[in-house]
């Protein structure tokens, strides 16, 4: 019994193991280990002998009894278990067998049905073939019929077309009408030889002609919007209106509107507003027009598109010429120089807005012409600025003249000239800077046209530097020079102090201002243009020569004033019968006063300058002694007619050693040189006048006194006292020569008279 059970369980376990093996359970190993135990009842390697032996050896009887009981119980339970299991599986097997049997039956039935179906299908095929062969004829007929049907429908459409078109037109659905007509047109055209179609065609054509007329009318109606226009054009195009006529009409229509823009433009506010209106009105409309035109007429490339393009170009060319003329005219009117930024902004806007049409219609050269206008405007602006600078300078000069002419307060006189000069040069410099700043706007980064080649190069160098700054400096010099040239004759109206002032101004220009201004200009306008420009040095030399001319003129003028006094005093007096001198003549005092005045005036503007070192006291004395001794020598000499060269030997020898004195020569830019010039001129006049007169004894003495007086006061003004000395000496000498009764006055008496005066 036990063995069976064990076998059973072993079997069970074996099948378990197989299952487990099948499922690849991992614990199988462990269990196997455990099952290796031969004493384990449930183990695989159970050895009943061993188990029994072991049991017997180890257990007591009771224990054995218990085991036995336990064992029995287990066997029983296992038994029952097995029984149930067998039952269950049996039932299942039975049901499976049933199912298989049933299926077998079913399949058999189905096979029969399938056979039936196949035979039926064959019949059907046969029938179908038969039917289609019979139906072949009628099918063709049906196709034909349906073709006829469509044709009929088309015909119906055609017949109805006139009415339909009319209706459409009545309803205002022109687009619909046009599309209907365009559908029918070719057919009608094809069958126009048939009378009925021909009738329809004529009808349609009449209607469509009417439509076209309407459209054209609308097209021409100036009130219609561009949108409507383009619709009209589209329809008309579909109606096969000739494209070039349409182009013309379209453009003609556009012309009306653009022209009205142009005429609107004529009255306008400031330049910016003007340009805005021009851009907003004319340019944008032109763009719109060009765009819609191009979309209408030059969609596909070809002859007509080219033609259309050409037409557009001509049209725009013409209109834009008018526009540009207007703009230029307006720019011409832009004279006020107050705010250049407005102009620049306007120009910038103008230039920018031209980009769009120029891209749209490249043939028209908007860009080029716009740039040209901007360039011209800029050039004109420069010219205006130059003019204004010149006027400003003239204005300053007028102010200065007024200030010079105005009666001065005695206390203020000393600072007058210097202040005037400083004021003048400062205000001119300021004005130049203002103008430069204004002009600089043209080259500002944010201005679109500033990166054009012209504005980068030529504008900076030729325009601003040469055309404005250099030209202004040149004109300053010229203006200054004019003061020398016009009043060269009698009746001069230029106050001499103005000459002096201008000369100092020019000199300042030469030394610093010119280079400063030009550096400033060059810094602000870094031109990339390498064209030759006037070098600073040539401007400087111009300024210097101007200053020199002015100063020479000043010296000449002042010299003349003093000369005139001296000449009058010599010419109007009867020197033969004059009385013994008791005083220095008043005119000499005037001369000294005048020269002192000039000295003060010149001192305000010019530096002292170098003079030859002399001790004043000694020179004074030298003169008196020397001249009197020479006088004695001269007219004490007996003239021997037989010895031609002897007579003037003394004076000739003296002349040999003194340098030739140039009377109206150029002076240097310092006070001493200027005054030397004036005094030279005056004394030479004195000399020449004396030589034309005849003197009596007292006449000579008077001249002696006068000359001594002049010597006393004039030496301090000149660079080389010797010069005054020589000239005065010669005056006295000449007077002695021209004297009927040469008896010179005692030197001491002369000195006394002079000191008293």
């Amino acid at each position, binding site marked *: 019994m036990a063995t069976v059970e064990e076998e059973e369980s072993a079997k069970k376990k074996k099948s378990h193991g197989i299952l487990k093996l099948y499922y690849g359970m991992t614990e199988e190993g462990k269990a196997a280990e455990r099952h290796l135990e031969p004493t384990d009842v449930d183990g695989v390697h159970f050895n009943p002998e061993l188990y029994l032996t072991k049991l017997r050896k180890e257990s007591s009887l009771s224990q054995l009894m218990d085991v036995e009981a336990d064992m029995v119980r287990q066997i029983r339970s296992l038994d029952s278990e097995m029984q149930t299991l067998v039952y269950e599986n049996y039932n299942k097997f039975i049901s499976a067998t049933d199912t298989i049997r049933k299926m077998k039956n079913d399949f058999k039935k189905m096979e029969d049905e399938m056979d039936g179906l196949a035979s039926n299908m064959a019949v059907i095929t046969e029938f179908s073939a038969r039917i289609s062969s019979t139906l072949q004829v009628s099918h063709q007929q049906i196709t034909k019929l349906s073709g006829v049907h469509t044709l009929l429908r088309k015909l119906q459409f055609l017949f109805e077309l006139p009415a339909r078109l009319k209706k459409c037109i009545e309803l205002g659905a022109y687009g619909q009408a046009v599309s209907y007509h365009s559908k029918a047109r070719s057919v009608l055209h094809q069958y126009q030889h048939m009378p009925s179609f021909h009738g329809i065609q004529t009808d349609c054509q009449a209607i469509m002609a009417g439509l076209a007329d309407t459209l054209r009318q609308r097209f021409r109606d100036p009130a219609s919007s561009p949108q409507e226009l383009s619709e009209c054009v589209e329809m008309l195009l579909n109606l096969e209106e000739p494209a070039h006529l349409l182009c013309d009409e379209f453009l003609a229509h556009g012309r009306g509107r653009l022209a009205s823009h142009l005429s609107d433009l004529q009255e306008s506010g400031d330049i910016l507003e003007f340009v805005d209106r021009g851009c907003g009105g004319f340019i944008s409309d032109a763009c719109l027009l060009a765009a819609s035109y191009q979309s209408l007429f030059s969609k596909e490339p070809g002859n007509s598109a080219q033609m259309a393009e050409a037409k557009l170009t001509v049209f725009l060319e013409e209109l834009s010429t008018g526009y540009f003329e207007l703009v230029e005219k307006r720019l011409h009117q832009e004279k006020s120089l107050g705010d250049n930024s407005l102009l620049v902004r306007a120009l910038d806007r103008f230039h920018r807005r031209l980009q769009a049409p120029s891209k749209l219609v490249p043939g028209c050269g908007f860009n080029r012409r716009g740039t040209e206008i901007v360039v011209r405007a800029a050039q004109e602006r420069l010219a205006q600025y130059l003019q204004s600078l010149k006027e400003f300078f003239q204005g300053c000069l007028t102010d200065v003249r007024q200030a010079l002419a105005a009666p001065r307060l005695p206390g203020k006189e000393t600072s007058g000239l210097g202040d005037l000069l400083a004021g003048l040069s400062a205000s001119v410099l300021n004005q130049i800077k203002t103008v430069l700043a204004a002009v600089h706007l043209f080259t500002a980064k944010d201005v679109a046209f500033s990166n054009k080649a012209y504005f980068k190069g030529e504008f900076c160098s030729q325009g601003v530097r040469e055309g404005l700054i250099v030209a202004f400096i040149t004109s300053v010099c010229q203006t200054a020079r004019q003061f020398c040239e016009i009043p060269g004759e009698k009746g001069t109206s230029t106050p001499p102090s103005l000459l002096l002032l201008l000369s100092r101004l020019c000199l300042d220009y030469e030394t610093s201002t010119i280079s400063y201004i030009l550096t400033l200009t060059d810094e602000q306008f870094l031109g990339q243009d390498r064209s030759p420009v006037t070098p600073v040095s040539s401007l400087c030399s111009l300024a210097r020569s101007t200053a020199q001319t002015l100063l020479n003129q000043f010296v000449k003028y002042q010299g003349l004033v003093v000369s005139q006094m001296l000449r009058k005093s010599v010419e109007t007096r009867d020197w033969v019968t004059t009385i013994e001198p008791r005083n220095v003549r008043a005119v000499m005092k005037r001369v000294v006063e005048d020269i002192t005045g000039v000295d003060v005036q010149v001192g305000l503007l010019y530096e002292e300058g170098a003079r030859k070192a002399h001790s004043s006291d000694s020179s004074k004395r030298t003169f008196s002694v020397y001249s009197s001794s020479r006088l004695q020598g001269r007219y004490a000499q007996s003239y021997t007619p037989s010895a031609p060269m002897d007579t003037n030997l003394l004076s000739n020898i003296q002349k040999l050693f003194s340098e030739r004195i140039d009377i109206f*020569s150029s002076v240097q830019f310092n006070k001493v040189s200027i005054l030397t010039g004036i005094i030279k001129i005056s004394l030479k006049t004195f000399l020449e006048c004396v030589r034309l007169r*005849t003197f009596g004894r007292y006449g000579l003495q008077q001249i002696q006194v006068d000359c001594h007086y002049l010597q006393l006061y004039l030496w301090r003004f000149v660079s080389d006292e010797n010069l005054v000395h020589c000239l005065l000496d010669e005056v006295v000498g000449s007077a002695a020569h021209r004297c009927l009764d040469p008896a010179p006055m005692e030197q001491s008496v002369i000195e006394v008279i002079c000191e008293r005066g």
Partner: protein
Amino acid sequence: MEDDAPVIYGLEFQARALTAQTAETDAIRFLVGTQSLRYDNQIHVIDFDDENNIINKNVLLHHAGEIWQIGASPADRNVLATCYNKISDSKVMTCAAVWRIPKELQGGNHESPDDTSSNAQSLELLCHLDSTAHGNMACVTWEPLGDGKKLLSLADNYLLIWDLQESSTKSVLSSSATLEGKGQLRFTSGKWSPHHNCTQVATANDTAIRGWDIRSMRQIYCIENAHGQLVRDLDFNPNKQYYLASCGDDCKVKFWDTRNIHEPVKTLEEHSHWVWSVRYNHSHDQLVLTGSSDSRVILSNMVSISSEPFGHLVDDEDLSDQEDNPQEEKTKEPLQDSIIGTYEEHEDSVYAVEWSSADPWLFASLSYDGRLVINRVPRALKYNILL
């Protein structure tokens, strides 16, 4: 001739008056009048021997007074007129007289220089130009190209034309004109035009130049403010009838076309002091000589306003006695005006310059210290003009 060096002659007195002996066309001869208040004044007849570069002189005494101006008769080389100062009772009067060079000196028989002082001859007085009624004589001028019978003199504000009669021993005032105007007007200088049949004269007073027609004795033009200051001297272009040169105290030399008196044709401003004398060359009017109180003499070549602006184009007006080659000249470019030379031999004011009447390439200048300098036109220029 190996030298262009100047020849210098010194007078013992101061001198202002210089003239060429106009009637003499063979010898180079100048007359110089001296100014001395205390000694007898002299007229030096100066002959220049061109070949040997030697000066021969003859001294004639001019007792009447110091000579301010001298003019040689265009017809008779032994007749001359002077303006001189006469002092009487401490009054100074300027008078004019016509003189004759004594027989012994005529014909160019020069005595040796050594003898002149001892044997000095006096001028023979032919006649006085009596102007006591008119004032001080400023200037006396002969009718150019005439027969030596007509004289023009300027006295204060009177313009006087004299006829010489009875072989110049009697002078008759034939006509006169008065300069009217504000203030004391006084003529300073005058010149008789060689054109228009010698019917025109030009005068200078103060800054104005006036033209007169001596047939009617009316003023025909007036250049007001011709110079900035006093006008010192005038000269007519010998070959261009409307052209006139003037100089003055504004250091300028101006050339005028009397048909357009508003502005000068040309202005020269080379001197640095008053210009006292201006003279056209008698043959080649592009050569203009000026003397100034800056002690310089300047010779200018004013081709552009001369009668021969392109060389010898104007043949019919060319009175030159030189051999001309007009054909060659025509191809030349217009010449530029230029300063030919500045002569600095003088050390005192030069009051008179004069071209020689015999040699058109020779001129003399006189400075106040009595130095007479004879110079020649540079040879290069001479050939340039001739060829």
